[in-house]
C-alpha cells in the first residue's frame, strides 16, 4: 500500500528534474531545506531522522540534490522526504514537505481492534513493516 504523506503524494513519484524544480522554488522563496529519512511509515510518526543539518545557506538546487542523492545512497529502500521551512513568520513553519524516495515494496497497514470495557472497540493501525527490527524493515534494492 502506497503511503500518502505530504505534498504531491497522490501524484506519481516525482522525477529528479521535478524534485529539483520544487527545491529551487523553495529556495527562491527563501525557505531553507532539510532532508529526512525513516523506515517507520506510520502516519503519526512525524519525527523522522535528519540527514545532516538543514541547508540554511544553499542558493541553488544542485547543492540540495547532492545531499538528496547522498542520503539515497546511504539509505536505499527507505522513505526520504524534503522539508522546506518558512522562517519569515518568526517560528519554524513547514511550508512544503514531500516524499522523494520510498521502498520498492510497501506492505501497508492492518487495522487492529481492541475490545475494552462495555464492549467498546478501540482501533489502531499497525504497520506490517514494523514487525521487523528497525533498519531491516524493507528489502535492500
Amino acid at each position, binding site marked *: 500500500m502506497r503511503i500518502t*504523506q*505530504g*505534498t*504531491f503524494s497522490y*501524484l506519481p513519484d*516525482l522525477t529528479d*528534474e*521535478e524534485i*529539483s*524544480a*520544487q527545491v*529551487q*522554488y*523553495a529556495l527562491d*522563496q527563501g525557505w531553507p531545506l532539510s532532508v529526512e529519512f525513516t523506515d517507520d511509515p506510520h*502516519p*503519526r510518526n*512525524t519525527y523522522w531522522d535528519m540527514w545532516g543539518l538543514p*541547508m540554511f*545557506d*544553499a*542558493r*541553488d*538546487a*544542485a*547543492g*540540495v540534490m*547532492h*545531499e538528496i542523492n547522498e542520503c539515497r545512497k546511504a539509505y536505499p529502500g527507505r522513505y526520504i522526504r524534503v522539508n522546506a521551512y518558512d522562517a519569515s513568520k518568526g517560528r519554524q513553519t*513547514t*511550508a*512544503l*514537505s514531500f516524499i522523494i524516495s520510498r521502498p520498492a515494496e510497501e506492505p501497508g497497514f492492518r487495522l487492529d481492534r481492541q475490545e475494552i470495557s462495555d464492549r467498546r472497540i478501540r482501533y489502531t493501525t499497525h504497520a506490517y513493516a514494523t514487525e521487523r527490527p528497525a533498519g531491516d524493515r524493507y528489502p535492500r534494492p
Partner: protein
Amino acid sequence: MPGRPAGPAPGPASGTPAGRTPENMPNGPVADMPPDGTVDLLEARKLSGVDDVLDALDRELVGLAPVKTRIREIAALLLVDAQRARFGLAAARPNLHMCFTGGPGTGKTTVALRMAELLKRLGYSRRGHLVAVTREELVGQYVGHTAPKTKEVLKRAMGGVLFIDEAYYLYRAENERDYGQEAIEILLQVMENQREDLVVILAGYKDRMDTFFQSNPGMSSRIAHHIDFPEYSLDELTSIGDLMLAEAGYRLSPAAEATFRDYLARRRAQPRFSNARSVRNALERARLRHAGRVLAGEPTAVTKDDLMRLEPEDFLLSRVFTEPPG
C-alpha cells in the same frame, strides 16, 4: 494530521521551467535552427546583456588590459557556443574554471565578482552569486572534519562561482598529513563532475600558485583559463584614486593632485605595497586628517567645498614622506 503541511501546494508539480535544466542552459532551446538557417550574433549579444557587464568592467576597472581581453574572449566563446548549440553542433560545456594570479590589490576579487555576473548573463551560471572562501573555510582541524566542511562550502556555491582566495595555502608541502590535500581532492572531483553546477576560481600570488600547481598537476590541468593580473602603473594608480574619491564624494585640490601622485610614487617603492588596496588605505587616512583639519580650522563657517576638498597637507603628514624609500 501533524507533520502534514497546511496551505496551498506551491509551484508546479510537474514539468520543469524553461532554462533550469543543464541541457538547455546556454541561452534558449537546444537545436531549434535548421541547418541552413542564420542566427544574428549581435542580437544574441544584446539579449544576453553581456555588454553591460563588459562595459562596466571597462569603465570601473582601471588598466588590467590583458585581463579584460581575456574576459572578452571568454564571453565571445560562450556566446558563439550558445549559438552553435542552436544548430545542434557539438557544444560540450566549456571548462570555465579559472585561476587569477597577481599581486595584492590588483583586482582579482573584483574581477571574480564581475565574472560571476557575466557567466550568469551568458547562461553558464544559474544564480551568478560569488562565494569567497579561504583555507580556513575549506580545511578542517581534525580527522574527518575536512570533508563535511568542504562539501558545505561547495553546496553553498552550487549554481554560482566559488572563489578561493590564496588557494596555495590549501596545499602545505612541508606537512604530508595536512588536511588540505583532502579538500583539494574533493574540489577536483566536483570541478570534474559538476561543471554545469559550479565554476571555481582560484586566486593567489603568481610564484606561489606556480608552486601549488607543480605539486598538484591535476588541479592545473582542470583549469582552462590562467589569467595573470599585472601590477598597476603610476598613472593607473592615480586614476584608481580619482575613481575612489569621486565615489566617496571627495576631490583633490590642484596642489594635492601633485602631492598624491608623489605619495603614490614613494609608496610604490616601499615594501608591502598592495596596489589598489594601498590607494584605498591612503585615501582613508587622508580623510581622517582632512576631518581633523576641518575641525581644527574654522568650524563655524564650513562650506560644502571645504568638506569635499583634500589638501596637500592631508597627504604630507603620512609616514611615507618621512621614511626613506626601499
